[in-house]
């Protein structure tokens, strides 16, 4: 479930990076790298688990599935938090800088 959520997140982030012309400036690439990196690593994890559990790998307990889904969503949220922090610090459009100037 975690692998599945990471793959969906990676595909969506990659599609956004490709479709949106200013995605590179807005550091969407950061999300793409993080999600694909995690998805590939979890793929390896899944292969090793499959070797160990065989067919039982595909029939997890509902409680385990729920926990894995919750973990997957938390991982997506963590990557989004990292991305938004980097975006605000780099401030490619100067919006944070403008907001701080306006306060003065």
């Amino acid at each position, binding site marked *: 479930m*975690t692998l599945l959520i990471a793959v969906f997140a990676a595909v969506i982030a990659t599609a956004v990076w490709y479709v949106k012309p200013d995605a590179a400036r807005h550091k969407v690439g950061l999300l793409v790298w*993080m999600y694909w*990196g995690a998805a590939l*690593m979890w793929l*390896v994890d899944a*292969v*090793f688990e499959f070797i160990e559990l065989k067919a039982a790998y595909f029939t997890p307990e509902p409680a385990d599935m729920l926990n894995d889904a919750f973990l997957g969503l938390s*991982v997506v949220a963590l*990557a989004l938090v990292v991305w938004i922090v980097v975006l605000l610090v780099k401030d490619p459009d100067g919006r944070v800088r403008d907001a701080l100037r306006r306060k003065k």
Partner: protein
Amino acid sequence: MACFAVPAVEAIAVTAVAYILQKKEAARSLQVVKTEGAEIEDNKTPFSKKLKWLRNLLFGGALLLAFEHVWHGEVVPWFPFLTAVQNGEAAQMLHEMATVGVSMAALITLVWVGMVLVTNALEKRAVKLQPHSAKN
């Protein structure tokens, strides 16, 4: 247990190599500009930039997997940071690092090699498609 540590270590090594390579490439391009007298337009992506793709994949994945290990209680914020070491399961942890961790790093590196090969092929095709006058 600590499989993400292997890609993380590789990411640190790749970062160091990319940094050194970037310095060398910058010095080389400066030398070319000085000797040729004019800046030559180079459409090829520098290798240091390609290495940064690998670094990003490794660091990104390792960060999210580290979070997963915290989630499962395998990594803790106090010494020795790994519950496997605390519980005397260090041998099991090292075995997992040697199998799962190394496989993770290997797969990511393999995917990156594929990306570099595709990029190189696209760059070569772009050079071939350029009009003859643009080459000179």
